[in-house]
């Protein structure tokens, strides 16, 4: 289907199924039950799953295929966000032109950063990209945030190009030459896809369960599916093969008459465009762009996502992004009261001990859990969650094979 091999088609169909059914699958617990806090099926979080999924898929095209570890990919995320914001401010609230500008601008920015950073490899490349990202952060935070209108005017550029610390925000005074300056309620308008507001959602009640279908989520999911499809095509293309060859042995590539530089730059730009797309989508879901989006921790996060899920695998980065965003939003909400409720059945003294022991790993301490998990994955499953899934499938198949039913294709990957 769509020019994919059987195995990839199956994976793609699984991903389509899961993303389309996500509002059900991520809401397994009835509303009002104790477990309801583990539900992830609300639009804001689901949007984050797919948007960071796009970010990680793009990062994986660079890191997974070529082995070049960029530590500054958040810069493209930020550029994408600011680009989309300016599109909203100047032209109108339709998300399509905003996303297009995000992709184009971040692509151009990636040409510049990539051209310089790719003169070095290994740790030097990582440091160069990190330096660029932190310079971009500094630009967004202060340099580009000065009053560019002049002191006696209160115009569009009053807070500069980026809005500085508070970020770039919509205002009813924005020109928006192709759309309404304000929404129907007089407030700032909402991003839309040819009239469908990203914020709109329908709720469905089935017994005690509440499922929310949001336009924003489905739009983002659709964009992610396109991004995922393109990434499969890149992985299976001659271009993808050359990128893997760069990772494997650049010397041989050189002496095989191939020039690694343009290949690397192309991979860098493509992955920067993915990051820009993700940044643009963030703004399309919630029209606000701040400089913290370019901070080095944001660059580090996408590295974690990719490694956690499985470097160089198709679905791994999406899994990693989902897991980290789930932990960030769900684990961090658990507090000591909830823990006491859970362990109320224990004798009082023991309950306190258990709660005290678990407490550092939840709430604001969710990073600790993430760190431990990351260590466990890197040590025991260097191939990430995908390798874990493959091992489980392998074990199951092994049992089946013993029953006399061998199964030929052993590399099915689990999906989110």
């Amino acid at each position: 289907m769509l020019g994919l091999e059987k195995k990839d088609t199956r994976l793609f169909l699984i991903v389509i199924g899961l993303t389309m059914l996500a509002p059900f699958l991520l809401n397994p617990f009835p509303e009002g039950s104790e477990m309801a806090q583990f539900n992830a099926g609300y639009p804001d979080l689901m949007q984050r799953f797919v948007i960071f999924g796009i970010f990680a898929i793009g990062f994986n095209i660079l890191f997974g295929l070529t082995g070049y570890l960029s530590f500054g990919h958040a810069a493209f995320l930020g550029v994408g966000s600011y680009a989309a914001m300016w599109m909203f401010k100047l032209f109108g609230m339709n998300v399509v032109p905003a996303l297009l500008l995000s992709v184009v601008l971040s692509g151009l920015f990636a040409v510049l950063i990539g051209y310089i950073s790719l003169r070095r490899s290994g740790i030097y490349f990582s440091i160069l990209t990190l330096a660029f990202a932190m310079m971009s952060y500094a630009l967004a935070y202060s340099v580009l945030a000065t009053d560019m209108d002049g002191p006696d005017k209160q115009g569009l550029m009053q807070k500069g190009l980026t809005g500085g610390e508070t970020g770039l925000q919509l205002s009813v005074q924005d020109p928006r030459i192709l759309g309404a300056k304000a929404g129907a309620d007089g407030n700032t308008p909402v991003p839309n896809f040819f009239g469908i507001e990203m914020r709109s959602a329908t709720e469905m009640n089935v017994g005690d369960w509440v499922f929310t279908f949001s336009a924003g989520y489905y739009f983002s999911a659709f964009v992610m599916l396109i991004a995922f499809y393109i990434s499969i095509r890149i992985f299976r293309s001659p271009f993808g093969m050359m990128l893997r060859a760069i990772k494997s042995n650049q010397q041989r590539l050189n002496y095989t008459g191939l020039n690694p530089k343009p290949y690397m730059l192309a991979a860098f730009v493509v992955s920067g465009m993915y990051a820009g797309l993700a940044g643009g989508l963030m703004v399309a879901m919630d029209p606000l762009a701040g400089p913290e989006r370019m901070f080095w921790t944001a660059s580090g996060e996408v590295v974690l996502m990719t490694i956690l899920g499985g470097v160089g695998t198709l679905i791994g980065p999406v899994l990693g992004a989902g897991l980290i965003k789930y932990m960030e939003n769900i684990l961090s909400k658990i507090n000591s009261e909830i823990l006491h409720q859970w362990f109320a059945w224990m004798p009082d003294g023991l309950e306190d001990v258990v709660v005290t022991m678990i407490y550092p790993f939840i709430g604001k301490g969710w990073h600790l859990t993430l760190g431990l998990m990351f260590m466990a994955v890197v040590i025991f499953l260097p191939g990430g969650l995908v390798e874990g899934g493959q091992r489980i499938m392998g074990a199951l198949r092994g049992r089946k094979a013993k029953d006399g039913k061998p199964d030929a294709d052993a590399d099915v990957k689990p999906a989110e």
Partner: protein
Amino acid sequence: MGILEVKNVGKRFGGLQALSEVNLSVAENTVHAIIGPNGAGKSTLLNCLVGKLIPDTGSVMFDGQSVLGRSPHEINQMGISRVFQTPEIFGDLTVMENMMIPCFAKRDGSFEMNGFGAVRHQLDVIEKAKTMLEDMNLYEKRDMHAASMSRGDKRRLEIAMCLAQEPRLLLLDEPTAGMARADTNNTIDLLKEIKEKRDITIAIIEHDMHVVFSLAERITVLAQGTPLVEDTPDKIKGHPKVREAYLGESA
């Protein structure tokens, strides 16, 4: 005039004059060996031919064109392929993929952005890679990771990858270094077979006299960065200067 003309090449590393006044002419369709004791400058000379090093003086012409100042991939596209002392292959890729990459390089040049067309639809490349692997008796191993092959197979694969580019000049840097006798003989047979089947010039740097005298039609002896003599194998064998260079004055 030979296909490869090296004139007055000199190369200095700090205080060490690695090469001085090297003149070498490799005639088309011959096997030319470059021998010499350790430190004679054989590898430096080779690196000057493939673009890894740029000589301080002199010129290197391949087929009438200068190679100096060009990068390795450009020189390779001109028709010079290099086999390394320790096989350089794409260890993480399968044998088939290893074989396809030089076929792509031959077909599409040094850069081709094809990010959307599937590899499995590049039938001409697949067919060519398959033929090459069959020629080298490696086709059964096509799905193996190249890194997990035996050293002898890696060497065969590397040579096959170079040949897939249909080079006019094949440079071999001690192709049998560290090999057992049987593997060495296999490599000699392989190179002889290649020479018989194709219009190709082979320049070989070698330590092992057995290999040199079984293959070479011309031999250049290098000592202390400069060519001592160039002649046929028979004449080289008894040449007093060569004995001197290898065994010292007293011999």
